[in-house]
């Protein structure tokens, strides 16, 4: 094996995420967040992180409560049917997390410019909104050099680290997804980031990937660390493998407004378990896992 990048989640986060880094998260509300990596950021007590996310969910709530992040660059933060992220809200309202709010196309443009080493890419979204004047460092209305209407220049964004969760990966970091929607754009943000940590449901041999190279969406040469974490997106969903965990989201939503109860939840689910297996066990173990793989419409 020429480039074996397999490591543990502890070592991956310790080696590749520094205090103050800008960390890009795969996530769309209750979908597909790299939760094992997020928990490890908290366990290692990282500080001063900026979080880049399309629509953050429980991951952003936890990172806010743990005071791991102090800024957010993203389009929205919500747990959808489980309500607003209350700890994130409180942190923003208290001035402890600073928000750079972008529309989806503006975030897309900033990361796209980062991936392609461009100073900016334009969008036609956001024109007329207060989001442009709120963010003069990164968004500017500019003339079209070809004579058309003005567009919004979205400044390049290069995260220090991208956290990706995938279905399977080989030891060199070639990343495959099962037939899927590729939420939320694995297509751009890992290519913009300086480093990429991939957690995956399973690590497989390259020979397995060779059977379906059309499913490989990220080449190993962009990846720095590879970690096997089954149910690594729990409690978010990871289509088509497992659904979001309603009970778990509800349990967090219920305690999240109260400092002591939220801390108790953290002790039980994040700080207490000494391994991913212990985490899964505390979250309901085999019964939970089989429930989330069931087919019924919820």
């Amino acid at each position, binding site marked *: 094996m020429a480039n074996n990048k397999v490591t543990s989640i502890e070592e991956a986060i310790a080696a590749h995420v520094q205090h103050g880094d800008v960390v890009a998260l795969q996530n769309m509300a209750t979908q597909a967040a790299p939760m094992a990596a997020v928990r490890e950021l908290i366990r290692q007590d990282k500080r001063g992180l900026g979080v880049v996310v399309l629509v953050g969910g429980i991951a952003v709530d936890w990172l806010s409560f743990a005071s791991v992040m102090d800024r957010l660059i993203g389009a929205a933060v919500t747990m959808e049917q489980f309500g607003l992220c209350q700890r994130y809200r409180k942190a923003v309202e208290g001035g402890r997390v600073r928000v750079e709010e972008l529309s989806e196309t503006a975030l*897309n443009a900033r990361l796209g410019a980062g991936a392609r080493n461009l100073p900016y890419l334009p969008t036609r979204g956001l024109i007329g909104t207060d989001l442009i004047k709120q963010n003069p460092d990164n968004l500017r209305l500019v003339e079209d050099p070809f004579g058309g209407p003005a567009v919004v220049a979205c400044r390049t964004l290069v995260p220090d680290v991208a956290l990706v969760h995938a279905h399977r990966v080989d030891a060199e970091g070639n990343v495959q997804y099962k037939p899927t929607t590729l939420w939320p754009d694995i297509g751009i943000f890992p290519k913009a980031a300086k480093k990429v940590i991939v957690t995956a449901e399973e690590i497989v041999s390259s020979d397995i990937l060779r059977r379906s190279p059309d499913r490989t969406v990220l080449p190993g040469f962009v990846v720095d660390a590879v970690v096997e974490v089954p149910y690594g997106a729990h409690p978010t969903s990871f289509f088509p493998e497992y659904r979001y965990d309603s009970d778990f989201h509800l349990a967090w939503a219920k305690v999240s407004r109260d400092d002591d109860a939220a801390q108790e939840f953290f002790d039980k689910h994040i700080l207490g378990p000494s391994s991913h297996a212990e985490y899964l066990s505390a979250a309901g173990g085999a019964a939970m896992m089989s429930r989330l793989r069931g087919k019924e419409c919820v």
Partner: protein
Amino acid sequence: MSGEAHQEARDYTVDELMISVLSSFFEDGDQACNGMASFLPVSAFMLARLTHAPGLVWLASATGLEPRPAKVPASTLESQLWSDSVMYMEQYGDFWNYAMNGRWLQKFCVGAAQLDMYGNANNSVIGADFHTPKVRLPGTAGLGDMGSLGKLLYYWNPNHSPRSLVEKVDFVSAAGYLGGGDEREDLGLAGGPQAVVTNLAVLDFEPESKMMRLRSAHRGVTVDDIRAATGFELVIPTDVPTTPEPTEEQVRLIREVIDPDGMRRREFGR
């Protein structure tokens, strides 16, 4: 269609009325998509496809094309809604190639925490200071794009009140008619807000001033009720008709086929 199918229902609830009105905005040849927490638009698209607009194309969660979910599930952003699709679209990147193009997905339903008299929407912050707001709302997501991309915007608001319908939004996270008149047009923006469907009324925008105007009142709701529940002076025409009521067939479809679990009612009373 039998005459009976067009019979106005005697018994319906306001969620069913709102779904019926929203569905009337979507026709064969349109493409509709939905975002999160969008039970009323999703129900409306499903209803339109089952009744007057079988050719309405639906891109569920901006992800699953022409899906066939068994019913409205607990989330409008998760895979249960995209079941049996003909295509999975990569939302964040590829979706916008179609949505920004200007030829497709020209109608969009918008839910917002605050909406003002010129149809500007706020899902960002309540309060004067963006960085220490009184309330941090979820954020603009795709709305900040949709408002500026020439789309026809259809707002829905299940909780018509002076808090949600305000004279001026605290923060413009999606462009409506901005300061009214030609201001939107002068910025080069086409499209714009077309209607607002609330639990009390249907509203639209006066063509010259772009001020929000009462178009119809739901059965049992008076103009004074609507005035009292609105945080600014609405344009009120001399004749205010009653909002067209759902047919018996529409109500049956909503209750028995589209949303037997009543997910649509989760949006009310917030």
